[in-house]
Each structure stands twice: as structure tokens, then as C-alpha cells.
């Protein structure tokens, strides 16, 4: 097996670079992150590659190019907060945190091994850059609301961004928290849904319909925005314009594909947590070259 998946460019992207250059660097980083993630899932023989890949561009854009964070000082009071509510996508989160410089990428080799800090679902006590212990769906958004309320109490400028799965939105806790955030007008809070259309066993719309999401969140007092969740330029453009409506939290519907962009994984429900064979890893790495 080649180690082609292993190299990872480390470091955040300089915000003063021209947009085109930032987009080019993000494209490279997101590909490297997916390659590294693939190796991690292969060696752990466990993981959630489908949802990792649908989220990869969003997570990379936020952690590498948008958030006001300092990987060498992960506990700074006024850092922006990123809450990864879909904790099963730990592979992409860990690879991106390592790429941002939060910890040594060598840690990634031990993904899910005995005593590794890198559990199948993230643990903030063990991994710098992780803000919330997630895994059971429906925890991140309420925590993000709490972080945003604390920020408002303190008059802080920090932003809180939370990534949720679309299937995850079936958990009632999200809607309880959205009601509270809408009520309080938390406009430094942004929730992004990875709208890949699938949950664990089937499409969301065949399981328990979510649409019309934009109308629902607007009715809860949020501003809604839609974006191509694989387009770094659009993501950067949107995140620079937050909040979309002053005085309201923003709900971003990021249109994505599960398993993107690997041809034999994309939009295939079984890749929610299927583990690729050596042959499939090789083929996927080629597509991600």
C-alpha cells in the first residue's frame, strides 16, 4: 500500500492572500485531508467516510481560513468556536485540526487504537481544538447556543459556528435550541447543515421529511442561506458576510454529496460507514490525487 494518503500540508491559510490563492490552497488542503482520512479509516477499519467527505470542504474552510483561532493557543478566551455536532465525522475533523496545526499529524496514525486520544467520536479533554464531546446526535447545537449566549452576556465579538448533519436534524433537541436562539436573536451564531440528503440507512426525505428546511428555520426566527458546500469560494464569500440578517442567527444549508468526490462512493447510502478495501482505497486516492 502506498503512503500517498499520508502527506498533509500543515498551517492556516493567510487571510491577506488574494481570494483566488486562498481558494487554490483550500482545494489542495481539502484533497489532502480526504486522502489522510481515507488512510485513517482504512487502518482503523472503522469510520464514517461518507459524511466525512460531504463535510470536508466546510470543515477545512472554517478551520483553515475563516475562524479566528490560534492552534498554538487553543484555549484563548475570545477564540471563535467551532462545534462539530456530527461527531461521527471525527476522521475529517481530526485530519483538519492536524492540518491547522492543533496537534502533530502523527497522532492520526493511532485513530481509534487502544488508548489513542483520537476516539471514534471527539473528546475535548484529549484533543486540542475540539470544543464539545459529540457523537450522540443532537448535542452540538444546544451547546453552541449556550456558547453564543455567554458571548452575548460578555459583549464578546467571537463567533460560534456549528456543523450538524441533516439526518441529525430529526432530533428534537435541535429545534428546542433553535427556538431559544431565535428568541434571543443570537446573531453571532451560525449553524451549517451538511445537506447531503442521506442519513444512516436511507435518504432523509424517505425516512422523516426535513423539507422545507429554509422555511422552517425562518419561522423559528433565523436567517436562512444556501450554498454549494463543496465550493470554497462560495463558502468563503458567505462566511465573510455573516450575519446574513442583523439580530438573527444564521442557518446555512450547505448542499453537499455524501462521499464526494469519489465516483464510487458519492450519493451511495452504504458509504455512511462502510470501510473501503485496499483496492478501493487505491482507486479513491487516485481520484483524489
Amino acid at each position: 500500500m502506498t503512503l500517498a494518503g499520508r502527506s498533509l500540508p500543515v498551517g492556516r491559510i493567510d487571510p491577506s492572500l488574494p481570494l483566488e490563492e486562498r481558494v487554490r490552497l483550500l482545494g489542495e488542503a481539502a484533497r489532502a485531508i480526504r486522502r489522510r482520512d481515507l488512510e485513517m479509516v482504512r487502518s482503523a477499519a472503522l469510520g464514517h467516510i461518507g459524511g466525512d467527505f460531504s463535510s470536508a470542504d466546510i470543515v477545512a474552510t472554517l478551520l483553515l481560513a475563516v475562524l479566528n483561532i490560534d492552534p498554538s493557543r487553543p484555549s484563548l478566551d475570545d477564540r471563535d468556536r467551532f462545534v462539530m455536532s456530527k461527531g461521527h465525522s471525527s476522521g475529517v475533523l481530526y485530519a483538519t485540526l492536524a492540518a491547522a496545526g492543533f496537534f502533530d499529524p502523527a497522532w492520526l496514525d493511532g485513530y481509534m487504537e487502544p488508548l489513542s486520544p483520537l476516539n471514534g467520536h471527539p473528546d475535548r479533554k484529549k484533543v486540542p481544538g475540539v470544543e464539545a464531546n459529540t457523537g450522540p446526535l443532537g448535542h452540538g447545537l444546544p451547546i453552541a447556543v449556550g456558547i453564543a449566549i455567554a458571548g452575548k452576556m460578555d459583549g464578546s465579538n467571537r463567533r460560534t459556528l456549528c456543523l450538524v448533519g441533516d439526518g441529525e436534524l430529526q432530533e428534537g433537541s435541535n429545534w428546542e435550541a433553535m427556538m431559544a436562539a431565535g428568541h434571543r436573536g443570537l446573531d453571532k451564531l451560525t449553524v451549517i447543515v451538511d445537506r447531503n440528503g442521506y442519513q444512516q440507512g436511507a435518504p432523509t426525505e424517505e425516512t422523516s421529511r426535513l423539507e422545507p428546511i429554509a422555511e422552517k428555520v425562518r419561522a423559528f426566527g433565523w436567517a436562512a442561506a444556501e450554498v454549494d458546500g463543496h465550493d470554497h469560494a462560495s463558502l468563503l464569500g458567505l462566511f465573510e458576510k455573516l450575519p446574513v440578517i442583523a439580530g438573527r442567527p444564521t442557518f446555512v444549508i450547505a448542499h453537499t454529496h455524501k462521499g464526494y468526490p469519489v465516483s464510487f462512493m458519492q450519493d451511495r447510502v452504504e458509504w455512511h460507514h462502510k470501510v473501503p478495501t485496499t483496492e478501493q482505497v487505491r482507486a479513491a486516492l487516485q481520484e483524489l490525487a
Partner: protein
Amino acid sequence: MTTLVGPDLFDCRDAFASTLQDLAQRDDRVVVVCSDSVGSSKLVDFKKRFPHRLVNVGIAEQTLIGVAAGLANGGKRPIVSAASCFLTARGLEQIKVDLAYSHAKVVVCGMSPGVAYGELGPTHHSIEDVAWLRAIDNLAVVVPADPKETEQALRAALLHDGPVFIRVSRMPVPSVYADGYQFVLGKSFRVTEGSDVTIIANGTMLARAVEAATLLRGRGVGCRVVSMPTVAPLDLAEVRAAAEETGAIVTVEEHSVRGGLGGAVAEAVVCQHPVPMRILGFPGFLPTGSATWLLEYSGLTAAGIAAAVDDVLQHK
């Protein structure tokens, strides 16, 4: 002896899935309720055969239990199935109020409990479920040890007048019971006789307890092994007999040491006939690692159980 620890290993979810189809075939009122857990509960075949009798509520465990209570009210016999960690934690108040307090005849099956999801970490370990649930009045709590007991527990649960929780193991286990075994809700089963000490076990730990007893017998220690599949209501008479007749007890379970089978037995022992005890299980949140590795790491092996027996015998 009516037990044999067979050489083959089984995933108890398979016994659960085939029994479910048989029950549905026999009784039109049987419906299955799940929460995006068709694959993880092995319900794919059930879904094909009885597509209109599978209610998938989406990823929503509170609603999962509430809907099951409503289905029971509407004349159905619901069997709920989802990963034990989410089902019991998120749905706890619904289990207490909508099922137990309301006396709704619903069977709740917690899949892949204990540390079956080892590498996925403590969020996915279900090592508190028995403690939470056995504290609830009017709820039977059953932890089967092998495929045969899983099947029989499911059949018995459907006949029981009240809600029942069954923990359905995913971790491969040997078959423990011989052909004539009959599970009875609320009753324990004496697996081996012995007068020096009693090991009380259930679930995936029963086979290991039997192995430990064999090791100990080789060293001249007569070990009674009691299988205690029903944690609530507990078989108090058998616990009392263990205390009075063997004078020392070790419990072992794939669960936290706080409040599970060990806690239940300890409460009974202290109130009836105090004797030295050891409670084996997990001390708290665990590191990541495979299920097999976590059991070794936590001393939940035949050798670990035998060592606890040696220790308790020092205090007899």
C-alpha cells in the same frame, strides 16, 4: 450440568431478528419501531417481509419510545429496537413515564450494549443502561447471555404483563445453555454447583464466569455459577441462598460497577444476609479500544474473575 460453552460464536442480534419475524408471523399486532436503526438492529429482512409493520421514526429516540407507547395504546404490540446507548439515555424519561409508570406493554430492545462499540468511545458505550433502568419501578430488565436466551427472553417479554427492556448483545458470544434450557422472567439459573463461593453473572460475562469456575475447580475451589439474566425483578431467593450456602459472592457484568447487576445483588445481600462481595465491571468512562481489548483492559476475563474470587475468599 445443563450448560455447554460451545466453540462457535454468535451475534445475538441474529437470534433477535429471526425471532422477531416469527413473532410477527404469529401475531398481527406485533410492530417494530426503530430510529434510523434498520441496519444496526438487523431489521433489513423484517422490513422486506413486513414493510408496513416497521415504523422508522427517524433519528429521534424520545419520539421512538413515545410513539411505541402510543402504538400500544392503539392496540399494537410494539417491539422497539435501537442502539442501547442512545435509546436508554435519550429516551429515559419516556421509558419511565410513557412505559413503566403508564404500564404500557412495550418491549424495548437495546442493541449493541456494554462496550460493543469499543473504538467509537464512551459516547457509544452503554455501561450505565442497566443501572438507569433497574431504578425504574414496573420495568423488567433482562440481560441475555446467548442466542437461545435472547430468543426466549423476547418471546417471554411479549407475554409479560408490563414493559420489558432486553439488552441484545452484538459482541460475539458462545452459546451457553444446553437444549433443554427455558428462560423464565425473574428467575435465575444455577449453571454449576459449588459451596465455597458464588459467581453471579449475565450477558456476555456468563461464559467467562463458567470458564473462571473451571479454572478455580482445578485449584480446588468449589464455585457455584448463577446466571442472573433478569436484573429487575431480581431473584432474591437465589441471592439469599448464595449468601447463606457459599458465604462469598462475586458479580460480573459488562456494565459499570455502579448500580447494575452488582448493585442489585449487593442491595439484596446487605438486607438479607451480609457476606463479603466483589463487584466486577467497568470503573468509569473507558479509553478507546476494541471491545475485546476493553474487556481485557478491565480484567473482565476468566483469569480476572478467578483473581477476584481468590481475593473475596481471603475475607470470608
